[in-house]
């Protein structure tokens, strides 16, 4: 479109006789009664064109394969080297349980690819970047900061679940494009940041700005899922605040692993379900990795895959409660081969093979498998979970386990990943632990439901406990939660293993809010849930621009009303007002709209006062805190401000106003004196003397010399 405009501009400048008055107008055949997408939004947005450009795969119109995905990741890392670094597998070394590993440990059995992944961080408020901070030799990344929370996001445990790596790629593209920007009108409707993920105004509609709802009903289900103005439809959650993305990337370390099971995915795509997979096996396909389960011993890379036997279900190969309970979705007899025909029909449990039993004496005490990984000291020897029964036998799961255990920025031995997420397909579900037991609840049951509901709301997926779908054993989330106390969610994306290509982008868009939500809560998901359940944060308020009065001179006081039981910290780095001035440029365009320059955001801490205030919603009494912004008196323009609160246990930020990433705006008039009368008179005389005096002298000389000149007769001009 932009090119077309430029050509038109060129034509018009050189050949203005072409009276084309129809630029920017759209016409449509047989118009419906209501509005069409082109009437509201930019053509790019209405036509599902994503602003980062690129080919059909990058535009989510075709599926990536491992190679194109990896290329794109490397390209993005190169273009955004302040916040993204590309990695594959781990370097290895001595891991947390004393095993020696190398980079080869993490390469797939068959095709020998390590899983590609992206480290994303802005490096804190000081923006030290993804190559700043500490470097980790084992993991191979830099940009590790003790005080910045980490989050792990993993796609494609299961080879055939193609959307589970497209959604992370959409997340990655979104960060790469929008990081560092603000105030972008994503949908071209003239409004900015008016409709972020979820139902932020609480009216029961995801379409906060009502633009989808204003369409003719025939356009309201643009993704064809039967839900009018639901998630993934045009105009729903389409204009999120870019500032929030920037803030999140700056205050988190994101470990994004879009395709864990590279071996399996290549096999599914290249051999097992040849294209078009969405027609040949929409609900089937290759699930596991490519472990050789016989008859030849490993390594056996030259042998063809034995589809009847080979492979391990990676999401049954984590160690927590591995192999328990029998009768769950594990093979009745481990290692049993089942004919492939039955495999595709879904009869056999061979598809959920957990991997082999561990027959080694892990702790060297002469006993075998006497203390399985379940968080308890089964053999009463004072050590917990030190001799496991199995699991963690695969390169891919070892990669996850070692990444989790070796990425220890603060050196406390506990996992830095307080929140973790894994994408799967399909069923349109949000699942939280436990998976290994039925009729059981985690100690964090209410909190896990709280966040699950938030994510279910964004997607209109169903939120449920994992084992209520079906019991499992050794899955990713049970391990993260059970072993590492990490709030872990499994998202079951979409409606098929192999979705149709035309559904890729809107399914990805529908799921885009979830990773950002998880990134946000990863600082302290437990506390966020507790505060959220009580809605303390919702009752607090930052003074709005309508209620703010600017004093006639001096600092501008920005007040907040804080609930007495809200555990906020006085640390200025985590509790402060962010503000910036916006001034008209000094060199305005003569004929265009007013141009503004935004200064950088500045930070001013809060001070507690003795004043009381009334909290929102519940009319309870709160405490006023105030930040005095040093806005100069001679400033004239607009002031943008927002506040961020951190808690004493490190949750940061709670952002005001809602939604995160937005800010208040108020105009400030010039407040300084206009000048001193005497000095003004002085300058006036100087200028008047220079200009008018000079002019007078010039005219006098001219008149004087004119007297000497002989009068010239006028000449008639001819022609």
């Amino acid at each position, binding site marked *: 479109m*932009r*090119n077309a*405009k*430029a*050509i038109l*501009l060129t034509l*018009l*400048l050189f050949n*203005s*006789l072409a*009276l084309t*008055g129809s*630029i*920017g107008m759209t016409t449509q055949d047989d118009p419906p009664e209501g509005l069409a997408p082109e009437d509201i939004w930019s053509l790019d947005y209405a036509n599902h064109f994503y602003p980062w450009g690129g080919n059909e795969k990058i535009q989510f119109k075709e599926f990536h394969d491992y190679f194109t995905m990896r290329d794109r990741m490397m390209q993005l890392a190169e273009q955004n080297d302040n916040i993204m670094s590309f990695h594959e597998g781990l370097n290895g070394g001595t891991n947390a349980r004393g095993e020696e590993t190398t980079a080869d440990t993490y390469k797939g059995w068959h095709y020998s690819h390590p899983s590609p992944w992206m480290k994303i961080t802005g490096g804190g408020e000081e923006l030290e970047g993804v190559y700043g901070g500490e470097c980790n030799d084992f993991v191979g990344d830099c940009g590790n900061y003790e005080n910045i929370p980490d989050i792990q996001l993993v796609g494609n445990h299961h080879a055939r679940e193609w959307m589970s790596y497209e959604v992370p790629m959409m997340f990655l593209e979104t960060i790469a494009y929008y990081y*560092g*920007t603000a105030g972008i009108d994503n949908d071209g409707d003239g409004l900015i940041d008016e409709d972020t993920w979820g139902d932020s105004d609480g009216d029961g509609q995801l379409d906060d700005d009502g633009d989808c709802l204003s369409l003719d009903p025939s356009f309201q289900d643009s993704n064809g899922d039967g839900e009018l103005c639901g998630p993934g439809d045009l105009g729903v959650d389409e204009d999120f605040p870019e500032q929030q993305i920037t803030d999140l990337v700056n205050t988190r370390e994101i470990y994004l692993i879009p395709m864990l099971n590279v071996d399996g995915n290549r096999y599914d795509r290249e051999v097992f379900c040849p294209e078009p997979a969405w027609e040949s096996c929409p609900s089937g396909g290759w699930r596991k990795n490519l472990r050789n389960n016989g008859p030849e011993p490993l390594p056996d890379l030259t042998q063809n895959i034995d589809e009847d036997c080979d492979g391990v279900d990676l999401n049954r190969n984590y160690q927590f409660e591995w192999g328990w309970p029998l009768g769950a979705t594990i093979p009745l007899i481990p290692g049993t081969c089942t004919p492939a025909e039955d495999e595709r029909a879904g009869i056999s449990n061979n598809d959920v093979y957990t991997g082999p039993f561990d027959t080694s004496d892990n702790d060297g005490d002469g006993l075998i498998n006497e203390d399985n990984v379940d968080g308890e000291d089964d053999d009463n020897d004072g050590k917990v979970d030190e001799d496991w029964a199995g699991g963690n036998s695969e390169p891919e799961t070892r990669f996850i386990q070692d990444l989790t255990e070796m990425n220890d920025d603060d050196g406390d031995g506990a996992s830095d990943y307080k929140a973790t997420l894994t994408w799967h397909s399909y069923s349109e579900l949000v699942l939280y632990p436990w998976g290994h037991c039925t009729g059981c609840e985690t100690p964090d049951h209410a909190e896990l439901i709280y966040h699950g509901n938030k994510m279910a709301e964004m997607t209109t997926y169903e939120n449920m406990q994992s084992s209520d779908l079906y019991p499992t054993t050794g899955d990713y989330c049970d391990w993260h939660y059970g072993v590492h106390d990490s709030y872990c969610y499994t998202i079951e994306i979409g409606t098929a293993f192999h979705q149709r290509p035309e559904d890729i982008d809107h399914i990805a868009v529908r799921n885009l809010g979830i990773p950002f939500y998880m990134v946000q809560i990863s600082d302290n998901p437990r506390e966020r849930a507790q505060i959220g359940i009580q809605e303390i944060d919702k009752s607090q308020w930052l003074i709005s621009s309508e209620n703010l009065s600017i004093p006639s001179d001096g600092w501008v006081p920005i007040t907040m009303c804080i609930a007495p039981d809200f555990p906020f910290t006085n640390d200025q780095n985590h509790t402060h007002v962010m503000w910036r001035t916006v001034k*008209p440029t*000094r*060199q*305005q*365009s*003569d*004929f*265009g*709209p*007013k*141009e503004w320059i935004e200064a950088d955001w500045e930070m001013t801490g809060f001070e507690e006062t003795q004043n009381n205030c009334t909290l929102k919603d519940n009319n309870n009494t709160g405490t006023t805190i105030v930040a005095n912004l040093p806005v100069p008196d*001679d400033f*004239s*323009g607009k002031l943008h401000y927002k506040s961020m609160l951190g808690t004493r246990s490190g949750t940061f930020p709670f952002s005001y106003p809602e939604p995160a990433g937005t800010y208040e705006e108020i*105009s400030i*008039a*010039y407040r300084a004196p*206009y*000048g*001193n*009368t005497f*000095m*003004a*008179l002085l*300058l*006036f005389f100087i*200028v*008047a003397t*220079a*200009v*008018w005096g*000079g*002019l007078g002298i*010039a005219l006098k*000389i*001219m008149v004087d*010399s*004119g007297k000497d000149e002989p009068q*010239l007769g006028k*000449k*008639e*001009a*001819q*022609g």
Partner: protein
Amino acid sequence: MNHLQKSSDEFGSRIGLIFAAIGAAIGTGNIWRFPRMVGANGGGTFLIPWLFFLFIWSIPLVIAEFAIGKRARTGTVGAFRIFVGRKFAWMGLWTAWISTAIGFYYAVVAGWCVKYFTLGATNGLANVDTVEVWNAFLTDPGQVILFQFIVIAITIMAIWKGAKAIESVNIWMMCSLFVMLFTTLALALWMDFSDGSLDGATFMFSIQWDLLAEPETWINGLSQSAWSCSAGMGMAITYAVYMRKDEDTVLNAATMGLANNSISIIAGLAVLSAIFAASPDPLAVVTGGSSAITFLALPEVFAQAPGGAGGRWVMMTAFFLGLSFAALTSMISTVELCVRNFVDHGIERNKAVAFTATAIFLLGLPSTFVWIKMDAEGVAFPAFLEVQDHIWGYGLMFSGLFIAFSIWKYGYIKWCGMVEAGEIEGGIPSFIKHGMSGFRDDFINTGDNDLWVPRAWDFIMYFAFPILFTVLIVSYFGDLISSFDPWYTAFNPSDPHGAGIILLFWGVVAALFIGFNDYVLTRRPVYLGEGHWITGLFDRGNWEMRDAPLFRNVPEGAEVSIDALPGGEDPQIVEVGEVPEGWDDVYGEVMDAELA
């Protein structure tokens, strides 16, 4: 039939030239841009760099232009052909093009001013929502085109008859402008003083020292001075063509520059006083875009004029009439600049006027109706016009550079001649001592001048000018590019607000003009075939390239020898009334065809 003008055309009096030059220099920039720059750059703070650069940039450059025009006695194309040599005639075309390209949309803008005069005079701006009035006007192409047409019609009438008519129209309009502005100023001061203090005047003459230390204030002062005086536009070259013999270029330049700044001060004082009197947040008003101040804010402010309906009527009518006159006199100089170049090359004046006016009307049309958009505050603005302003505005800088180049070149060749003759030694110190003053000695301090120009002028032209030129260009493009993220997207030529589109259009135009140099500007194709030339257009044998003549408008008795100049040996350069070798009737038709 002979198309040639028989004798020279000149202004009737010295004061006529002064008024014409002042009329050209004073434009809307004095009345709407100057108060805005004062507001945005710290009031009185801004006056200091602005005055400084009047003496360092504007007046020296206008002196040079007058001197070139007075000696060359041709419009810009001819002036560069004579002063820099025939290979450089395209520089004159560039200068003329920048002025004319700005003229395309300036006629539209002048039309707005006239429209607002009619609205003011008919009480159409009293008690109205000024945004609604503006939006209704701008989104109605019929109205905008009508007033654009009126402006061009007035301009044609003023220049049709040549110098004498230009002179009388300018004298009349400028005198009226002074009356109008003083009337507005008196009312504005009255308004502002009604609370016992003159806030606007105090602000306008108070220095904020911290701002004075900022480079941006100085850059803005320089750019305001450079644009407001029309220095480098080629306008002074053009009007100097009609200068009577023996006139003082220096005094004329100084008078023009000082008069220009005088009017700026009066207009600035009037506008700022009125806004400070009537607006609760005057600086927010005054820092907006120029057209926003003039067409949205001022009518609201003037509605509060003292003296009730009568005072209001006087204030609105006087201000917008004055503004219209300022715009019209600048429009006249723009069209004349273009017309003069045609006349120099043997085109009849009335044909040249008709062609130029038609072209300016047609090429201005897109600015009247293409991409009329709404900004975030619901105010209409002409995006196409804005983009043209974006593209051509800074082209003026290069026009100024070319004028400086002609001075450097003359100083250098004269110095080389002296070195070859063994009069002086070579080397840079020798050049600084003997060479730099060449242009000043021979063309400025000729004895006609009452004010002697000191050696400082040489240093300004050789050193200060290139430095300031670089500062302006670098800061402009630097700011432009740094406002893009990532920066290199500024070079995407399809972005109408980027740097790429400017460079693209400049490049195309410069390449075209350099290409024209030998085929249109200094040589001409002559048709030798049978029948009408169009019948044999594609047969090369029918065409021959001959040198193009150039007719200098030399008044009787004037000493304007060009023998020492690069163009001095060109036999095709003759004075008006002479017929150069090879000139015949065929030429007129061929030239017309070339232009059409």
